[in-house]
């Protein structure tokens, strides 16, 4: 699978601003396909960000989060070159993770 996680983490005056975009259909279970059949729910349940091994945000998502979901938050600390790791797992057990350097 191609990379599903895009992340921008910028250290800025003692805190780090994180923005991430995840490629995921986030099917709600309420939308029908062309043949009129309901597309079963398929969505990210948990998304986690960790900075140097410490969790800085846990997102618990339901099917009402938009397709290709976006999240923005910030945490204290973090400097250029530090490692941020991002992982998600969905309701079908699919998962992905990646690390990014703070800019």
């Amino acid at each position, binding site marked *: 699978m191609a990379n599903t996680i895009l992340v921008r983490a910028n250290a800025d005056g003692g805190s780090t601003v994180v923005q991430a975009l995840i490629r995921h259909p986030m099917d709600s279970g309420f939308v029908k396909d062309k043949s009129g059949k309901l597309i079963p729910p398929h969505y990210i*349940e948990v998304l986690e960000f960790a900075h140097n091994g410490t969790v800085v945000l846990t997102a618990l998502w339901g099917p009402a989060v938009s397709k290709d979901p976006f999240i923005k938050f910030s945490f204290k600390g973090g400097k250029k070159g530090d490692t941020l790791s991002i992982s998600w797992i969905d309701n079908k057990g699919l998962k992905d993770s990646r690390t990014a350097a703070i800019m």
Partner: protein
Amino acid sequence: MTDTTPGSLAEFLPRRRHVLAGTIAGGMAALFGAGTAAASDIVLADAKNYPVKAFAQKTEADALSALFGKTATVSPKITLDTPDIAENGAVVPVAVQTELPDVTAVAILALDNPFTLSAAYRIPAGTAAAVSTRIKLAKTTTVVAVVESGGQLYSASRSVKVTLGGCGG
């Protein structure tokens, strides 16, 4: 996945601030490349505690009860930023921010969606009590932001008009 911890988020919050539940099987952790172990192991552990029930509720009270085991009071100290009219119900930007102290969680609810709870965030110490995300709205609805601060729940709400629902094609 089952909801192993009723009223989960509240208990679930303080418990895991630092890395790695020792309960994770080494084999699972090995699925991920070196260097990414931290978040990926935790995500697996948290997935076991995913609050399925909270995401299946149809009212604000039921969702909050399932997630936090308590009810919220309205607070002027929460800023909820949503568009007045959503350009497309499939992608509605929502930003929550608060000046309340000791924030441990933020939740976003859409009262007229099929299921009320859209997203919940666990906010560890050191993380700003401010998140922006994008959610789907099925129709015109009240969006509620809930903040857990000092063990209490507070909320703020805004109405969002939706002309093009987020449930259709």
